[in-house]
């Protein structure tokens, strides 16, 4: 393969040399040569890099799985890593948030819920009573039936509470309690739960929240208290009234029953009405029992309600809401009166019951006698099995007689019993009296006890009333003092606020001033900057304009110079050209014209003028000989000079001429001898000089040859005189012309502008 490459390279080189430049085969060869051995190492490198990258990625993902903070960091720093992590690990775990505000928020719902609970509690027994009590109470019934299906929402509960309040309208609006920021919330029984919740979370709250909370608390308390009291009062009142009503109804029923029974016992009414009487009696009896049951139930309920109410009142007494005391007192009084009424009614009922018992006993006895009589009658008249009431018209004479006889016997028996009874009357009366005494005592004791209790209650109530009054007075005084303090506080606050306001105003004014100053300075600075930049720009533009103008001028000048230089150069070239016009033997054209042209062209150029004037007159007028002609002439000069080498001032006879000619013929020397760097005196020999000059002139160094020829003495000198002169002329002219041309070239170079 290498050989192929070499061949290719050679071919390419050849082609390059030939002129068809195609370096592709060479490049291909180069590429081939780099492949091969390096393949395995490249593979190893690639595999190693892939391993490290994969390892790094896997490690990162695993650590992110373990440490969510690291994951968050990486997701923040690397752009699309969150998507990668989501793909690999799933969504990030939710952040932990501390619950600070929840208990505070929960209290209000709790309060309301407690309110609803309280309303529920108070309403459920009512509902139960409602179910068993068909005696409807119109105004509360509608309200009670609504909550019977257990209200779910808080708004409904509060609306119901409001309904109750509006419906009953007993309790006036409770004024706001004393201003204490840290007063715990409502202390009604139902609020104890929220108290437990609330106390551990006592901390500073903003004033607005506090006042809102206070207002809410007050409202809640009011609502709760009012609701509870009102409800409980209302409920107990209702139940008590119901109980009283029931008791009275029972009383009336008992009275009616006993009356009816008495009437029925009288048995002076016609038999037709007896049955109806007995029916009515039964009805009355049933009614009485029913009424009794109802009364008992109502009594139980009322007692329960009263207990409840007393509990509520106790709990509300335990609360420190002072202004609710009159309500509490009133509630207590109501309770007391209800209890008293209830007791009275109960005693009435009891007496009625005892009466009724007696009457019923009597009626039982009578019924017994009647039953006995009936039995006897039935024994006597066995065929009459049915109820004898209906068979008043179907009795035969025998039956009647037997009946009458039986009746007479019965009467005798009863008379005897009566006599016995009269005898035992006293004993019975005594026994009964004793019994009665005992009962009376018991009743008395009971009455006394109840009277004591009542009086005690009354005393307590009076005491409480008095205490309440005193408290009210104290409260009023406290309020006035507090008001005074509040007034003082407000005055103080006003002063402080005034001072603060002043201070703040001054501060604000200062700040405003400083800001205004800042703004002004800033504005000034900006305007100044603008001006500066503008002037800078203007100056820059002006400078640029000036620069451009100067550049243009200099360009013009330069172009002028260039033109002049060009012309000079052209004229110099013309002069050079005229130099070439020299022929073999005749000189050039006179250089006058060309030089005149030069002089014209470089009229302002001193150097060129000087040079032009430095050209010798001869060359101007006559022209100069070319070097070739001079060279050719030199040969003649040399020959001649050699021939007259001996002739000088002293020897100049014809004989000398002959001798010198002979010398020149007989002297053998090299024609051309390289001249030394330094001329020694023995080099000043004619022949040597001529040899040097020949050498020089053969090498084209006319100047050196002229120098050597100048050293000739004697006749040789005279012979070479003209040639020398010509050579000098030529040299001078050539020198000047070369100077001129160099100068023209220099000027041309200087004025030419690079593209």
């Amino acid at each position: 393969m290498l050989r192929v490459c070499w061949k290719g390279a050679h071919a390419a080189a050849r082609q390059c040399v030939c002129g068809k430049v195609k370096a592709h085969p060479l490049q291909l060869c180069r590429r081939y040569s780099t492949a091969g051995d390096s393949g395995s190492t490249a593979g190893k490198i690639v595999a190693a890099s892939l391993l490290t990258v994969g390892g790094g990625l896997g490690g990162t993902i695993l650590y992110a799985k373990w440490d969510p903070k690291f994951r968050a960091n990486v997701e923040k720093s690397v752009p699309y890593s969150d998507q990668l992590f989501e793909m690999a690990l799933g969504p990030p775990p939710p952040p932990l948030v501390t619950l600070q505000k929840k208990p505070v928020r929960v209290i209000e719902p709790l309060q309301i819920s407690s309110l609803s609970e309280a309303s529920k509690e108070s309403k459920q027994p009512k509902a139960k009573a409602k179910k068993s009590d068909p005696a409807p109470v119109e105004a509360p019934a509608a309200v009670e039936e609504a909550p019977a299906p257990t209200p779910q929402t808080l708004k409904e509960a509060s609306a119901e509470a409001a309904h109750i309040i509006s419906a009953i309208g007993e309790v006036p609006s409770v004024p706001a309690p004393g201003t204490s920021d840290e007063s715990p919330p409502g202390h009604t029984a139902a609020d104890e739960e929220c108290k437990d919740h609330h106390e551990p979370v006592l901390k500073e709250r903003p004033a607005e929240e506090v006042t809102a909370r206070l207002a809410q608390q007050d409202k809640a308390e009011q609502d709760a208290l009012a609701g509870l009291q009102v409800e409980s009062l209302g409920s107990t009142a209702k139940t008590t009234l119901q109980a009283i009503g029931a008791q009275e109804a029972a009383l009336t029923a008992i009275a009616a029953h006993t009356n009816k029974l008495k009437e029925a016992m009288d048995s002076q009414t016609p038999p037709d009405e007896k049955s109806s009487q007995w029916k009515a009696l039964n009805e009355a009896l049933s009614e009485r029992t029913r009424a009794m049951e109802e009364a008992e139930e109502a009594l139980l309920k009322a007692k329960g309600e009263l207990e409840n109410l007393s509990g509520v009142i106790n709990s509300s007494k335990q609360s420190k809401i002072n202004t609710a005391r009159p309500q509490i007192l009133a509630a207590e009084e109501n309770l007391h009166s209800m209890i008293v009424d209830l007791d009275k009614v109960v005693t009435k009922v009891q007496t009625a019951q005892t009466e009724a018992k007696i009457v019923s006993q009597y009626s039982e006895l009578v019924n017994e006698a009647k039953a006995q009589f009936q039995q006897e009658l039935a024994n006597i008249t066995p065929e009459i099995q049915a109820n004898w009431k209906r068979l008043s018209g179907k009795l035969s004479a025998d039956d009647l007689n037997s009946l009458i006889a039986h009746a007479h016997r019965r009467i005798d028996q009863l008379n005897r019993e009566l006599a016995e009874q009269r005898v035992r009357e006293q004993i019975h009366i005594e026994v009964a009296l004793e019994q009665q005494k005992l009962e009376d005592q018991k009743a008395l004791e009971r009455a006394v006890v109840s009277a004591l209790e009542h009086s005690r209650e009354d005393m307590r109530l009076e005491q409480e009333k008095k205490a309440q009054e005193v408290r009210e007075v104290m409260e009023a005084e406290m309020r006035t003092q507090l008001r005074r303090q509040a007034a003082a506080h407000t005055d103080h606050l006003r002063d402080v606020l005034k001072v603060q306001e002043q201070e703040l105003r001054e501060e604000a004014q200062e700040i405003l001033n400083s800001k205004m100053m800042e703004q002004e300075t800033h504005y000034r600075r900006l305007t100044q900057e603008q001006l500066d930049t503008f002037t800078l720009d203007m100056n820059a533009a002006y400078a640029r304009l000036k620069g451009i103008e100067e550049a243009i001028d200099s360009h013009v000048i330069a172009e002028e110079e260039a033109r002049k230089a060009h012309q000079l150069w052209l004229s110099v070239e013309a002069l050079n050209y005229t130099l070439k016009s020299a022929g073999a033997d005749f000189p050039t054209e006179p250089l006058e014209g060309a030089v005149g042209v030069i002089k014209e062209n470089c009229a302002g150029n001193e150097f060129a003028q000087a040079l032009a004037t430095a050209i010798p007159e001869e060359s101007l007028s006559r022209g100069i000989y070319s070097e070739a002609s001079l060279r050719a002439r030199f040969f003649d000069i040399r020959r001649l000079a050699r021939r007259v080498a001996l002739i000088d001032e002293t020897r100049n006879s014809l004989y000398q001429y002959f001798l010198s000619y002979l010398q020149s013929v007989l002297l053998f020397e090299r024609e051309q001898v390289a001249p030394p760097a330094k001329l020694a005196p023995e080099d000043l020999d004619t022949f040597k000089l001529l040899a040097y000059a020949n050498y020089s002139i053969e090498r084209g160094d006319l100047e050196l040859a002229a120098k050597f020829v100048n050293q000739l003495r004697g006749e040789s000198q005279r012979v070479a005189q003209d040639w020398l002169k010509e050579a000098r002329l030529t040299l001078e002219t050539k020198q000047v012309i070369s100077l001129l041309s160099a100068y023209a070239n220099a000027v041309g170079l200087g004025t030419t502008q690079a593209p």
Partner: protein
Amino acid sequence: MSEKELGQKWDRCLADCAVKFGTGLGLGIVFSVVFFKRRTWPIVFGTGLGLGMAYSNCQNDLRSRYVLHSKYFSFEQK
């Protein structure tokens, strides 16, 4: 041309020599014939005279550059 000068001189010299020789010869012959009874000595004398004159002329001509010319100036004190 200075180099031509010598040649010219030599030409003149030769021409002069030839003329002088011829003239000398001629005069010599004439004199020999006329005066000296055709002796040869006047011819030779004349030729010799002629050649001599020519030689001298030639030499003078060739020497002419080196000859110092002087002039007498008389100072007269006034």
